[in-house]
């Protein structure tokens, strides 16, 4: 079966800077692929190349079976894109915007009307659909943006930070729609997000991009397992972090350590068994601990393990 997305050594250079330095990825048809990375890692540039907005400076990519550089129009007919900041026209009404999208994709009046009625359910803004978009809240705009990306029922849907700025209810509604599109229609979904929970919950596989390179790729569970079954997080003063690492690294259950600001993340095979010796070792080192937590690894821990930085901190910065 032809992959929905296939990139080989995909690269984009701006002047002297490699925004994307050679990404290889394959997304199977019907898959939800989560693309994680901090600001400036190359996420948006990769998406812009895959969606034909930007030409690669090296490498190739095929989306829905067509080359993004040489068959851009064929790609555009088969993809839907909800960009990071809702790309809408504040002076049109929601209905006018959806209708215009349908016209540009060559849909008949009958099909546009039918699709509009279906998408109104997703947008979920009632009579506000006939008001100007400039009057919408951030959540309404995001949902309308997603609906606009779906007017022509694309094979592959790119959604860039789909729930940023949404309230919890709207966020869950978008998640449900993403799942439903994937399960019922088999739509392939390429999702970039800053919310690790979102990638964890929605994605079949996750790719982590840092400094323009794909540094890890697997299912969320496999990625988390790769750094140990459990993690112990010791919260200490940043100046004491090295002392904690020195105290615990040679303990038998400890598989690895990472430092991130006030936190020392200690990967262990068996958390309940390891927490006591770890606590004792830290105490014997004379380090004052503000908190000691045992939990299962998160994708953020994976990100820390691979890149040495927290994804969430980078996003917030």
């Amino acid at each position, binding site marked *: 079966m032809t992959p929905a997305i296939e990139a080989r050594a995909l690269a984009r250079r701006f002047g002297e800077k490699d925004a994307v330095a050679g990404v290889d990825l394959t997304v199977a048809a019907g898959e939800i692929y989560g693309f994680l990375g901090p600001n400036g890692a190359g996420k948006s540039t990769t998406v812009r190349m895959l*969606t*034909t*907005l*930007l*030409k690669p400076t090296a490498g190739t990519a095929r989306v829905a079976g067509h080359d993004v550089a040489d068959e*851009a*129009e064929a790609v*555009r*007919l*088969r*993809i839907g*894109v909800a*960009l990071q*900041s*809702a*790309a*809408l*026209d*504040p*002076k*049109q009404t929601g209905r*006018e915007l959806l209708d*215009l*999208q349908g*016209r*540009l*994709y*060559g*849909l008949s009046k009958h*099909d546009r009307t*039918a*699709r509009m009625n*279906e*998408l109104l*359910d*997703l947008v*979920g803004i009632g009579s506000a659909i006939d008001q100007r978009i400039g009057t919408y809240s951030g959540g309404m705009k995001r949902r309308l943006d997603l*609906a*606009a990306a*779906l007017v*022509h*029922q*694309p094979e592959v849907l790119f959604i860039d930070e789909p729930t940023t700025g949404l309230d919890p209810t709207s966020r869950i*509604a978008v998640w*449900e*729609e993403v799942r*439903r*599109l994937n399960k*019922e*229609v088999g739509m392939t979904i390429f999702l970039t997000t800053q919310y690790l929970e979102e990638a964890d919950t929605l994605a079949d596989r996750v790719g982590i991009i840092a400094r323009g390179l794909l540094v890890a790729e697997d299912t969320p569970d496999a990625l988390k397992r790769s750094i140990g079954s459990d993690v112990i997080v010791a919260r200490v003063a940043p100046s004491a972090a090295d002392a904690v690492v020195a105290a615990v690294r040679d303990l038998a259950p400890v598989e690895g350590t990472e430092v991130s600001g006030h936190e020392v993340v200690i990967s262990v095979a068996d958390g309940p068994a390891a927490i006591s010796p770890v606590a004792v070792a830290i105490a014997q080192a004379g380090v004052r601990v503000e908190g000691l937590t045992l939990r299962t690894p998160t994708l953020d821990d994976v990100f820390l393990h691979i890149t040495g930085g927290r994804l969430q901190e980078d996003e917030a910065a």
Partner: protein
Amino acid sequence: MSTTHVRVQARSAGFFTDWRTVSLRALRLTWRDPEAFGPALAIPLFFFVVNVGALQSFVEGGFPPGFDYKAFQLPVSVAFAVTGVSRASSLVLDIQDGYLDRLLLTPVRRGTLLLGLMTADLVLITALAVPVLMLGLLLGIDVATGFLGLIVFVVIAGLWGLAFTGFPYAIALRTGNPTAVNGAFLLFFPFLFLTTAYLPQEAMTGWLATAVKFNPTTYLLDGLRALLMDGWEWDRIGKALLAVLGLGAVSFTLAFKALAGRVKRN
């Protein structure tokens, strides 16, 4: 939620459908943008009334009887109304809001993104020219070429306004900067003041006479004045059309090259 009961097939809509779609949006938004055309109508009406009130007696005194300064001034006011009108500012907003990207993600023919805006401009330009012309008629201007001449007058003025739109669009697409687009208004001044706006060409001397000679607006005004004051003088009308054509060739080349640069994905 349910968003996929109806199966549809996306396809390229075709050049004319794209053009129509983009034009209709631009027209709709033009109507919702009264601040874009309110001053554009008020300013030429104001100048027409003030210029005629201030200079009519003085200028007509220097010409043989029968010279109508109102008819001489009317093309200037119409040129004021139609020159510099465009949706370039809204194009900049589309660039800044990311809406242009949304359009570029569709299979829309790229050229229609500009043609559609220009179509809306042409409608607005015509709508602005007509009331100014009507005011002149109400003030007693006798049109030498009759009703057909008025139609030709509006067509030439409309095409002139359209030809001028290329400049602000070129700036909008090159810079994506609203301040730069507003600065395009500066082009308006040499075009409309270094010309025969207030006095006939034969009354000009020195460097101004040279500037006037090379300003296409001079030939536009002369052609429009011929229609109002002298009759079907085809050489003057033809020169006006050539001036429109020349200006349009330059400005459209700049605008479509800027569009190509904006969408070339480099």
